[in-house]
């Protein structure tokens, strides 16, 4: 019992450190309210389920589970956020992640069959190949969207079918075993009881946050999403920016595929089929404007953890997955309605300028 207590305490300590870091980052986020709001929702939902089911919910195993389940969907949601930031969407991310996981598993298990020694030596390169698969898939998305001018939703709807179709043909519809053991081993390690997967999520989020804040491409992507016409007239090559954003998104998708394998050493074409919707819910919940221009990485990370907390809370209260799906839909619609109402109120007070929430024409001409 006491050991559990110390574990909880260390987790709480790590949590509070994390909170401090996050708050520091929020301070620099140009007074963006969505991250703060998300933090409040996270703390509130955590407190809510703790009050209802303290024994089950505060159990270290449960907290560990939340930390282990969040990263893969978190990384996919961050990639989704990047696409939404430019006013687009990427429906093919989960298919890309699965393709990456399948590539790694197939190559490694085949090499391990003939020469286990060489397989373990080549392991890092094989894992890197997963990211390359993601980058290539993302580049194809980017080509269709930025060069041919296909609408992101249709382009990625088509490539999702293609990537997923390739995965089905490749695996024959079955689940593959034999992912690199070293990857699974990484998943078992942790720092101060914080699972390594969760640390990876924080590192990736930090990297993407830095990319958006401090690189020219990141700033251009933000501007492109805010106002494509202004971006065009300020000399931004929107085609290149879009291309790079989708390549980066694909790379993150490939990375998510590696995280799949770290968490669970199997790969299949069917894995994470509910993640496409979930990633959109998380991105919007995390303060991403679906019309482009607004997004915070930390808002997305907090939204990811919040939804995992709600999910495990539901499980602790013995509610079904169906009720979770229902709640997901409700949360998504409620958040958008509340956002819209508060935007209208701001507008009525004359504090904010009128900005169309979802202007398709503008985006099309970009």
């Amino acid at each position, binding site marked *: 019992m006491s050991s559990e207590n110390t574990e909880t305490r260390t987790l709480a300590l790590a949590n509070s450190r994390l909170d401090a870091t996050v708050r520091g980052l929020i301070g620099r986020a140009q007074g963006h309210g969505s991250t703060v709001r998300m933090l409040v929702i996270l703390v509130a939902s955590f407190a809510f389920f703790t009050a209802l089911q303290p024994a089950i919910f505060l159990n270290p195993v449960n907290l560990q589970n939340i930390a282990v389940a969040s990263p893969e969907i978190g990384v996919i949601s961050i990639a989704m956020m990047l696409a939404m930031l430019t006013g687009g969407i990427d429906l093919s991310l989960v298919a890309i992640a699965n393709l990456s996981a399948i590539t790694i598993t197939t190559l490694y298990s085949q090499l391990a069959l003939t020469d286990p020694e060489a397989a373990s030596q080549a392991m890092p390169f094989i894992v890197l190949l997963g990211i390359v698969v993601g980058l290539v898939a993302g580049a194809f998305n980017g080509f269709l969207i930025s060069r041919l001018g296909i609408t992101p939703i249709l382009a990625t709807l088509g490539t*999702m079918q293609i990537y997923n179709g390739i995965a089905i043909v490749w695996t024959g519809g079955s689940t593959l075993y034999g992912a690199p053991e070293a990857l699974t081993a990484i998943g078992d390690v942790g720092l101060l009881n914080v699972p390594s997967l969760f640390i990876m999520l924080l590192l990736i989020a930090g990297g993407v946050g830095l990319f958006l804040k401090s690189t020219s491409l990141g700033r251009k992507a933000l501007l492109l999403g805010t106002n494509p016409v202004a971006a065009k007239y300020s000399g931004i090559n929107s085609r290149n920016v879009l291309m790079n954003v989708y390549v980066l998104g694909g790379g993150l998708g490939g990375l998510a595929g590696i995280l799949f394998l770290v968490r669970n050493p199997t790969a299949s074409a069917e894995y994470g089929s509910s993640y496409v919707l979930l990633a959109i819910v998380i991105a919007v919940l995390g303060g991403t404007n679906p019309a482009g221009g607004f997004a915070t990485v930390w808002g997305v990370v907090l939204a990811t953890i919040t939804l995992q907390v709600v999910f495990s809370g539901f499980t602790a209260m013995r509610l079904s997955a169906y009720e979770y799906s229902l709640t997901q839909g409700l949360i998504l619609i409620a958040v958008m309605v509340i956002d819209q109402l508060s935007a209208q109120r701001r507008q009525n007070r004359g504090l904010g300028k009128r900005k169309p929430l979802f202007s398709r024409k503008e985006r099309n001409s970009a």
Partner: protein
Amino acid sequence: MSSLLSNQGVPSIINRLRGANNEGVLLLVLVALVLTIGILNPVFFSVSTLFSVLRGAIVPLIFALGVLIVMISGGIDVSFAAIAIFASYTTVVIAQDRGTDPGLIVIILMALFFGVVLGTFNGIVIARFRLPTLIVTLGTMSLFKGLLLAYVGSKYIANLPPSMDSLSTEYVMSIPQEQGTANLNVLVIPVALIAVLVWWILSRTMFGRSIYAIGGDQEAARRAGFPVVRTQLMIYILAGSLAALAGVLHLILGRAANPQDLVGNELDVLAAVVLGGASVFGGRGSVFGTVLGVLLIQIINNSLILAGVPTAWQQTAVGVLLIVGVGIQAISAKRSSKKLVVTKTLQEQS
């Protein structure tokens, strides 16, 4: 540049055959596909194949007509499958609870009622709060499916009310074949009538024209005096009722009610509508193109195997077709906008 100029002399008859939304091109693709499969495997050219493709197109076509209406208005609806299964499954559960068969008309009216209610919910959220349709309907899809499975039921129902069940073996036409008979299900008649009805609404009524107007430019439509919010609400109610009807027909044809069904297969319908020439930006699309698009996807899903393509490639094939289809549209849109500039500058010079 010279090739662009020579295009100016294209006879208008070709443009007319091509159709407003490239329906003619799609028809050519469809004919080419049918011929290719038929040459690779003559078995394809049979009445039973034709009837089975038509039977398979019944449910997707009604879905597609609902999606078409929404897409012309500038939106994207992905909640139709969830509405369909919610309305039809709930209706069957209610009918089962009563013990007696309420009759087909009552069943359809009940399903339509649920379709209208769920469609109204979509419409209110989208029209009143002016939210992005894709994300709203993704949310309501999850919401409706969760409601159905958590509170209505998650059990597979094998025995439908007799009035529904008997309809699955009613045939409008039976042609004896070498092996057995080829039967055309009677449900193709109401589906054809609905397609004509939707065509009439879209092209001959004020409501239909206002759908195109809103999709073309919402702000312009509003200033021209179209009741945008009311029309949008009506669009989603209509789409909801079409989805509910499709759900009932799906249960009839499948002779069972599975609440896990339908949701997850939305993409084929979306692909069919987009291939049919409808624009996701709204303002463009036709019933004829949609019918062709649905038939194209049906043939790929049902008959590609006859041409020696393994079923595992189906999904990839639909994806490639979608990319090629919208890619051609995107490129030709780009080219025509360039052409406009070129001819303008040439006129100025001369």
